[in-house]
């Protein structure tokens, strides 16, 4: 690392030395003015989630909040959330991947053929399925970044082609069932309650410890930090929510507990949590992640900074399609089979919707992995709650579409507002 040319200033730096640390109230005021300035982040999604939940609790008191239904929500949302997390990377570039839904179908079909038709062991079938995702992403990335086809068109073509590929693999009207117990367990089995508590508490201790350590490192280095009170509120909220969910999921939720007992955290939740943490680290903790944001913000500036923009683009498409492969595996596990419509119908649009509702910008440069999770929660609540209320699929689609337009509108308007406030 080279050093600055300029001599260090004689007076202690006003920025580095004695930073005036903000108080709790100042911090809250700062947050409010940030919201007013148009930088809403995930707040609209969280509000929508809370309002929708409240509405469904009032309209369908017993069923919506039943333990069975809450666990069901997670299992329903897993596929959408996983594709959505991958889409965040592509959306950050200002691109789109319309083929992610059927890419997950192709990868699910590859898994099914390998496991059931070929009787290959899981240790071969699973990497093969994921590798299919990597290859798909590589192809799409090359088409967009090297050939220069707009991502909308390149992935629309792939959307059509993959739909055909799934049909070709499975056969018209066919259906390949999955019998591998490990794959089925992902969406259909739960972690024993005592083990669930152990994992959750260990994870929370690490989370709080890392949060506090980072805070004190920054403070000791004389850098600007949020007030301790804000940090504790933030960490405390996460701890309370996670503990509450663990408690709920560890309750007995079988309709007939004497015959079969169902309790514990569905296995898919920690799997998605690990994926989300890994991707968040990649995006926020590494130089690659910075470059992704850079390309989305100003590709020319990033290029002039000596970054290989094409490589960043291709990598993001690979990440997106690989996550789609994971989603394909979850989908196969949930349906216990793969049919020609796997990854079709509304899966992709829900996934794009999840990322955008969560606060990821369609214009690129703004978004987080957790957005997809929060957005997927909103969509799962709409889908599930309206189903319980007995509305038809038509009404569900219209409402989901409305929420998506609302989210995209908030994104577009806040963008204009941020420009205007310069």
């Amino acid at each position: 690392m080279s050093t600055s040319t300029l001599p260090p200033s004689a007076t202690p730096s006003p920025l580095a030395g004695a930073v005036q640390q903000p108080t709790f109230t100042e911090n809250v005021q700062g947050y409010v003015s940030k919201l007013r300035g148009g930088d809403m982040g995930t707040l609209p999604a969280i509000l929508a989630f809370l309002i929708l939940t409240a509405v469904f609790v009032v309209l369908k008191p017993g069923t919506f909040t039943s333990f069975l239904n809450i666990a069901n929500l997670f299992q329903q949302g897993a596929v959408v959330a996983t594709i959505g997390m991958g889409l965040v990377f592509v959306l950050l570039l200002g691109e789109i991947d319309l083929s992610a839904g059927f890419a997950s179908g192709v990868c699910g079909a590859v898994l099914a053929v390998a496991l059931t038709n070929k009787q290959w062991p899981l240790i071969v079938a699973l990497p093969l399925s994921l590798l299919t995702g990597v290859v798909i992403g590589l192809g799409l990335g090359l088409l967009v970044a090297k050939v220069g086809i707009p991502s909308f068109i390149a992935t629309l073509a792939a959307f059509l082609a993959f739909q055909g590929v799934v049909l070709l693999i499975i056969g018209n009207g066919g259906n390949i069932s999955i019998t591998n117990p490990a794959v089925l367990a992902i969406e259909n089995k739960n972690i024993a309650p005592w083990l669930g508590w152990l994992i959750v508490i260990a994870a929370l201790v690490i989370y709080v410890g890392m949060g506090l350590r980072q805070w004190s490192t920054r403070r000791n280095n004389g850098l600007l930090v949020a007030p301790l009170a804000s940090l504790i509120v933030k960490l405390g909220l996460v701890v309370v929510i996670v503990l509450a969910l663990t408690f709920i999921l560890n309750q007995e939720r079988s309709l007939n507990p004497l015959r079969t007992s169902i309790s514990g955290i569905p296995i898919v939740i920690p799997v998605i949590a690990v994926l989300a943490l890994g991707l968040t680290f990649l995006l926020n903790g590494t130089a690659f992640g910075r470059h992704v944001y850079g390309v989305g913000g100003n590709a020319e500036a990033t290029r002039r900074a000596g970054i290989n923009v094409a490589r960043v683009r291709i990598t993001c498409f690979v990440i997106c399609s690989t996550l789609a492969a994971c989603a394909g595996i979850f989908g196969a596990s949930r349906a216990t089979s793969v049919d020609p419509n796997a990854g079709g119908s509304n899966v992709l649009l829900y996934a794009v919707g999840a990322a955008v509702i969560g606060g990821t910008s369609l214009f690129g440069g703004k978004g987080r992995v957790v957005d997809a999770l929060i957005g997927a929660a909103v969509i799962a609540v709409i889908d599930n709650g309206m189903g319980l209320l007995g509305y038809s699929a038509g009404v569900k689609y219209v409402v989901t579409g409305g929420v998506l337009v609302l989210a995209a509108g908030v994104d577009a308007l806040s963008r204009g507002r941020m420009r205007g406030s310069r």
Partner: protein
Amino acid sequence: MTQSVDERPASSTGPAPALEVRDGRKSFGAVHALRGVDITVRVGEVTALVGDNGAGKSTMIKCIAGIFPFDSGAVLVNGTKAHIHSPAEASAAGIEVVYQDLALCDNLDIVHNMFLGREMKKGLRLDETAMETKAADVLASLSVRTVRSIRQQVASLSGGQRQTVAIARAVLWNSKIVILDEPTAALGVAQTEQVLQLVRRLADAGLAVLLISHNMNDVFEVADSINVLYLGQTAAQVRTSDSTRAKIIELITSGAASTDEPPLSGRRTDAAATTTNGSNPA
């Protein structure tokens, strides 16, 4: 090209200039954009590069910055001949350019913009603490106090602050020569003043600064030496203290000063020939 570009005596025993271009030439097909440019940029000085639109200022700094190399001529860094054929080679030679469009990412904060492409890492992880400390130090050494937090997004900054961030990024690295392309073109009065003071401080801190500008007020306020380009050729490089606005403007518009300067008749016809054959050096 026989004319001495600096009025300092050739026998000067001072250190070699930080950057020197001798008889630089550049053609794009039939268009002779640069037909013999000479410039001397000294350490601790602000050298202004002025000239009318199409005189070749941008082409010249792009050649120096390695975007495309000179066809012929010599580039000397600290008196030794430098081979600059790419932006990376220019950076390695200690040359950093702040372009007019600044090349900042609006969605990243000040620290990440300053370190874009050259992030400090601890293993795989970004070393945010080290980057933030260093960015704060550099901004402080530039006496930048107008920025409230260096963790705010660049989108929220004013034009002058953005210019400051771009300049800070240029001096963050081991740069010896900083080239600024029209840094005040889009700024208001107060911000122009701030940026000009910053430019002056860069030179006072021991950097060699090359300032491209259209604005005579700016040039006479900060520059120690003024280099005038006229139709792809260097008309003259003069000390600011020995010159007047009228003389510089005459050099810009006609390529020669009417008084106490040797007539450049040979060059004039040369220049006229170019214009008639339709070339418009950009």
